[in-house]
């Protein structure tokens, strides 16, 4: 079946969008987090058909949780709870009821003004989660490691960066990688007590921000980062310092990347230029030292566009098997169906 794109306007710029995982059935529910509006919120939606006999399903809002500031990221802690970073500097853990998605989101824990310039507001730019741990970063250049079970701050690296941090990712339970506004990447060992990075390197020479970082699902030593310029960099952490490959990809900043959960050779990226692409990463990530890309195989790295380019930025994407959700700055959400992986 060909790709099927369905858009719905929701009167909010969507900054993050996430499917809510379901155990044995295909999920119908998802979260959205809005940004850059007078009033922002996290909403729970469900795909429902208007009439019984109709095939097309439209998103319907189930509940709304208002937040003070932009929702900068949403990450899952487990199937029903999410960690949310907000531009007011807060980090919150919210829980959606497993049985009745309509009930309002429950606030499990809130770290108020976790990131701050003493009295002034400071945005918590993003966070990452791994097995119940949360790593949050902010414009103040601090890294906070939070424990979602106990609700405390396990470690805080003050002044981890002199500029603002914009991307973070857990490499292992005790290692995080951060990227700042200049594309300066640093790896931190959370066990060591001195606040010094174990490694530091540059994303690209252009001094533009690292906007997102993700690790390869099956080869944890491979790290990918997206740049504000639209470039995509890949490192093999066994021999870091220089990216193993730096691809000039999108026309403007990469906003989010996701490896397909079922097929680690598929990478999905979205960008400020309104593009959403799917990459075949096989040749890039599988390449060992003795292997090489044959010259006559020019199509080895193939990239497909999943949707006609939008006029506004696509801020977020999330993939569940053959269905991809994306949220954009034109105040719409798109569902791409029949994606082959």
């Amino acid at each position, binding site marked *: 079946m060909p790709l099927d794109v369905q858009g719905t*306007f*929701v*009167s*909010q*710029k969507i900054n993050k969008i996430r499917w809510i995982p379901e155990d044995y059935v295909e999920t119908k529910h998802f979260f959205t987090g809005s*940004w*850059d*509006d*007078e009033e922002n919120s996290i909403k729970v939606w469900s795909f429902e058909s208007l009439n019984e006999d109709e095939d097309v399903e439209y998103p319907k809002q189930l509940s709304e949780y208002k937040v003070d500031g*932009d929702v*900068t990221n949403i990450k899952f802690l487990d199937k029903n709870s999410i960690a949310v970073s907000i*531009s007011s500097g807060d980090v919150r853990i919210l829980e959606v009821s497993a049985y009745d998605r309509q009930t309002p989101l429950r606030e499990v824990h809130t770290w108020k003004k976790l990131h701050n*310039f003493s009295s*002034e*507001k400071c*945005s918590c*730019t993003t966070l990452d989660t791994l097995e119940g741990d949360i790593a949050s970063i902010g*414009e103040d*250049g601090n890294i906070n490691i939070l424990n979602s079970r106990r609700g405390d701050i396990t470690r805080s690296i003050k*002044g981890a*960066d*002199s*500029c*603002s941090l*914009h991307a973070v990712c857990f490499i292992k339970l005790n290692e995080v990688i951060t990227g*700042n*506004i*200049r594309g*300066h990447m*640093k790896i931190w060992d959370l066990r060591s007590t001195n606040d010094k990075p174990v490694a*530091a390197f*540059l994303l690209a*020479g252009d*001094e533009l*921000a690292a906007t997102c970082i993700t690790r390869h699902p099956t080869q944890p030593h491979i790290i990918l980062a997206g740049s*504000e310029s639209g470039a995509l960099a890949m490192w093999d952490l066994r021999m870091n310092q220089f990216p193993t490959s730096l691809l000039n990809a999108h026309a*403007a*900043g990469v906003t989010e990347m996701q490896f397909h959960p079922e097929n680690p050779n598929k990478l999905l990226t979205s960008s*400020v230029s309104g593009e959403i692409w799917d990459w075949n990463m096989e040749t890039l990530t599988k390449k060992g030292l003795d292997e090489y890309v044959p010259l006559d195989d020019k199509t080895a790295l193939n990239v497909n566009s999943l949707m006609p380019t*939008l*006029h*506004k*930025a696509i801020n977020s994407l999330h993939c569940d098997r053959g269905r991809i959700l994306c949220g954009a*700055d*034109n*105040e*719409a959400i798109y569902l791409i169906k029949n994606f082959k992986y």
Partner: protein
Amino acid sequence: MYTFDRNFEFEQNMNFSSFSSSPPAISNVQSVRRVKTFVLPDKCLEKRVGCAWRRGNQFAIYPRSQNVNKTTLETATKTDDKILNVRQDVVLFTPILRKLVNEANGTFLSVQKLVEISKSSDNQVEFLKLSRQYRSIIRVCIESLQEAAEKETDGLHKNTLVSYITIFYSIECIWHLCEILYIDIIPGEVVLPFLLEWVRFHFPCHEQTAAQLLEACERGSEDHPEYWDTVVGMVVQGRVDVARALLKLHSAADSNEFKLVDNSLRSMPVYSVYGGMSTGEFTITWKHWQAECRSKLSSRVLAQQPQLELIMRLMVGEYSAFESIRPKYSSWFDVLGGWVLFTAPWVRRRELGAAGAACAGLAPAARSHLDVMVRALLEGDLHQVIHEIQQISDNGWFASHLTDILYHCGKLQILDHQTDVTNRLRDSLILEYGSLLLEHKSLWSVGLSYLASCSPEGLKRAELLLERMPIETEAKAMRVMAEAKKYGLLSVAQSIPACVGARRLAARGAAGAGAALAWGARARCAALCSRAAHAALRAYCDARPLPAADLLLSAGATLLIDDTLLLLGKYCDFHRLYKNREFRKAAKLLISLITSNISPEYFWPTLLLDTLPLLETDEPVLSSDDTYEIMLCLELRSTCLSSEKADLLRLALARNLARTALIDVDDE
């Protein structure tokens, strides 16, 4: 100092009236007089008030008290003074209509793209598609408004929604007619089928009754109270087949009179471009048919059946017959299709003015906006149409989009004293609309894309408006910069990071130096970089650690933006070398910093004293030449060091000179 104890949102509902019921075209004199008065709702504003413009289309009203200086923090909390923030209530910013704004923006941009790629070729089909897209967007909007109105329980709010629905219904109706008359591709320009379709679509009278009657399919349907109205309605809408089917349901359908009318309806010639008949030929056949009908009428065969006679009179295009049925309809649009059908079915789309005038004259009625617009459209007076459209309270959505597409289709030509002002009209409408959207916190990017389509003025406006946009987070700053770059607004793309950096520096002092430098480098702003570097150096002089070391060591060419920044960067590098015990290199760097003379006055003591440990190393690292240089600097700036420290340094210099006099350090 006035206090901002309560930011009172005092929204007014400017110029909002359901336009279909408002008075006809207002003359200039009247529109000047139409001024609204608002009573300021608070006591503190009774005496003297001041007023100041805020960003965009809003202003603030504040009380002007005379004891200005006495306001302290304490009195501030007690005072009753308020600042009123007055702004226009913009219909388009309600959540439902925001969907319309965003969706239409996509289509608008497609229109612009289409124009760009097909400057020479004729792309009428594509324009038609986009025009239909606009209409479907309006339809979707009406649907969601209806849905919301059904759910709404609050009476006042419901009324507002209903009035929005009326507005958008009229917009769709006008757009459709415009599309038929100007954008659609009509073979042979014979507009009748399209016109009939328009009437059927927007004024579906009697349709349901007809469907019911036909479904029941009972002989003797004339007992239905609306039977004859329905039949006449179908004839007037040009649905001859339906009318004939309905007539067959009459209990006397087998009588001669019915057969006669049925026969006349059946034999009515229908023009089709591809029918192999020329217009002239068709005209003759049609006139012949009508003459036949007329003769049947005058033979008084139908005298017994007044309703059938009425149908026949309509068929021969008798004005009085149309006049007699007009009161049954709410507007003259209902009969427009019928009038054209039975008086001049060959009419071309530019020749509808007379038909419009005839139909509008059927009944004396107050002329609504919609009337005026449809009349103007039929007469081809687009200037008048746009003028009327501007009276609709939709904040210029309709006027700007319709004008734009008509302009790009090449169908719009408006002259003002012999000069073509079409271009200016289109631009001014779009600029107005774009500026309005740019005020909104979320819709700014949509507004920007409208302004960008009207270069060069649009971009200039965008520049001014973007610079004044509040930016709270870096994420937004980066997004605004990206948008500005997309449209080539380089000055905005540079001034935003400069502002962000300056704010960081102001808020956090030396701790913000790193962030300020990062943003300053983006803005290529030497002043900001210099300020940040000074802040960092001063902080270091106050015995705090050197800030932003991580940034400076990887800054590379960025350091060249400013001398002080270069000094800071190199000094930081000196620290690194020293810490790594690379004394030789460190010393060399320090000497080059001293001799280059770029250091600010307050930093000299630090630089000079930093030479001390290097002079005292086991192995000499500073050559005699270097020592002389330091001595020179020390003597030139001896005032900046305390005499004790200066003496200490002199001693160290003398000893180093003594060491190097024997074996000098090689300058490899």
